């Protein structure tokens, strides 16, 4: 049994270019693993072998005629939030259960142009609202490290697929932590770039001022390789006008500084248990040993980031999800007798509980009489948060925090207390609110499961983020730490 699933994208790319394997063989390898293991894990909502093999054949042609580039022929899992022309795209919801987009998202286009091979659409919390992938209409995804536990969310399917060796790399999206937290729970690198780097055209909208596409990968180099193919200005998304086109993240990984200054807000560490704190300090000491400067700073935002986020995100979601009215696409209730019923019945029958709750919250905070106290107040706080980070970045290169306060929780553990789940985003939401780039690195263990270490950089400093992350990976290589199902084969 071959072990292509134990290889990074960079290694697979070398193998493809040297002719050790064809893209078709690689694709078959991953498709067989999906068939064998995914029933239990539910990483995928849709597996598309025909599309994948046709793309693999095209890639193999490119290798024959010498036009292949670094990502050509590499299979990937594509979060089901990105529109794919001709391939069902559901956003994890009954509302889009039968929706086949008539166009490709820009992210989809760019990855296909790079020659990548789409194995299938990865499972996710419905409309990206969740931190566990338990809110998927298509069934909960499981953490390959221990299938009683969640893989995180909302990009849980992407995360679990890579961790289980069902795909070497995956796309994700991150509104409040939905790439970084699942990467943290599944021992992966997860990068959310600066807001505006990755086009949101064709990425089903949750909260338009927070959403950002990104990558879940095994290594820093792999994340750099895929992200650089995704970023850049897009006339179809006017919020990308400041994006850096053609960045060379993967080419400049080894050019980092020998001494970085890192600010660590005490507020997040204090909220961890003893084991978590000890692990986090262990990593800080490792960085200091390698010559980097660690300073503990005050950033007293822990008590306001969650309420600020849970005003802005639901508000924007309630607006974005108003388009699902049963008229032009998506689910239409067979019971509807009038136009009003088309709206109400379709939405009520096809949206899940968490989605409805967030729509209701968003409606409340935007309604007359409450808009000023909630939404407007939250946008002011958001601006202050951005200023606080900017102040820190005047004197520091990075802010470091745990990606989450603890490792993954058990499936159904938070069913009775959905609000408690919101607090698993404590360390991640401030990054989205401030529109900063951040990466989660699989450096820690907690209660026998993976826990991520988060680095936050100033706007558009992904190069610096990748360079330091690459250094850290050399200091503490992580492929040996925990063994999920992929290494049992």
């Amino acid at each position, binding site marked *: 049994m071959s072990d292509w699933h134990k290889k990074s994208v960079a290694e697979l790319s070398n193998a493809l270019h040297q002719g050790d394997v064809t893209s078709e063989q690689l694709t078959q390898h991953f498709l067989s693993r999906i068939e064998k293991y995914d029933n239990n894990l539910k990483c995928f909502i849709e597996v598309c072998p025909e599309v994948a093999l046709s793309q693999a054949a095209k890639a193999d042609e490119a290798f024959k005629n010498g036009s292949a580039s670094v990502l050509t022929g590499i299979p990937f899992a594509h979060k089901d939030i990105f529109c794919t022309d001709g391939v069902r795209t559901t956003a994890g919801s009954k509302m889009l259960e039968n929706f*086949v987009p*008539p166009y490709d998202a820009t992210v989809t286009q760019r990855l296909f142009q790079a020659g990548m091979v789409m194995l299938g659409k990865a499972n996710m919390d419905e409309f990206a609202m969740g931190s566990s992938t338990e809110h998927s209409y298509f069934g909960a995804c499981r953490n390959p490290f221990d299938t009683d536990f969640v893989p995180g969310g909302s990009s849980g399917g992407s995360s679990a697929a890579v961790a289980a060796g069902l795909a070497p790399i995956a796309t994700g999206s991150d509104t409040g932590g939905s790439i970084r937290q699942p990467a943290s729970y599944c021992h992966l690198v997860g990068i959310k770039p600066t807001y505006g780097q990755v086009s949101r055209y064709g990425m089903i909208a949750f909260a338009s*001022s927070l959403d950002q596409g990104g990558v879940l990968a095994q290594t820093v180099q792999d994340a750099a390789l895929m992200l650089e193919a995704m970023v850049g200005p897009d*006339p179809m998304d006017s919020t990308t*006008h400041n994006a850096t086109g053609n960045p060379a993240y993967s080419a400049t990984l080894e050019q980092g500084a020998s001494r970085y200054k890192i600010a660590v807000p005490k507020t997040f560490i204090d909220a961890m248990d003893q084991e978590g704190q000890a692990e986090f300090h262990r990593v800080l000491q490792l960085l200091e040993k390698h010559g980097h400067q660690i300073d503990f700073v005050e950033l007293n935002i822990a*008590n306001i980031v969650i*309420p600020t986020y849970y005003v802005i995100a639901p508000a924007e979601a309630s607006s974005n999800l108003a388009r699902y009215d049963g008229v032009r696409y998506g689910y239409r209730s067979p019971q509807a007798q009038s136009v009003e019923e088309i709206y109400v019945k379709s939405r009520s029958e096809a949206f899940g509980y968490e989605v409805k709750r967030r729509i209701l919250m968003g409606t*409340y905070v935007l309604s007359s009489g409450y808009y000023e106290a909630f939404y407007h107040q939250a946008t002011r706080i958001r601006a202050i948060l951005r200023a606080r980070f900017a102040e820190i970045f005047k004197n520091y290169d990075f802010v470091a925090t745990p990606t989450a306060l603890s490792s993954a929780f058990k499936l159904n553990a938070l069913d009775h207390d959905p609000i408690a789940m919101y607090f698993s985003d404590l360390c991640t939401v401030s990054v989205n609110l401030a529109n900063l780039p951040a990466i989660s690195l699989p450096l820690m263990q907690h209660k026998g499961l993976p826990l991520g270490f988060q680095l936050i950089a100033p706007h558009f400093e992904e190069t610096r983020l990748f360079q330091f992350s690459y250094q850290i990976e050399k200091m503490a290589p992580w492929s040996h730490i925990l063994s999920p199902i992929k290494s049992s084969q």
Partner: protein
Amino acid sequence: MRITEVELQRLAKLAKLNLSTDDIPNYLESMNKLLDILGQLEQVDVSELVDEEKSMLLSTLPLREDVVTMEPDVEKIQRQAPETTKNFYTVPKVIDDFQEESDV
């Protein structure tokens, strides 16, 4: 700030949602829990924000010429529609005798 069932139904109406009677207590409980947390926002001192405009996300938006740049493939787009008639989306009659406008 807490909401009552009456207010919840009003929100549901605004959001074009119908909440089942069984679910209402759950929604009320979780939303009120969240509202207790959101109440903390009132106490936050925002006086340090000097320029209100800075609370806006984007300082500039790029503009383009007001010309048509794409011709939509109507047939392809409408393949996703529940029901169509020629280039239109078919729905039940909107105007139906005289009906009380639901008060919002």
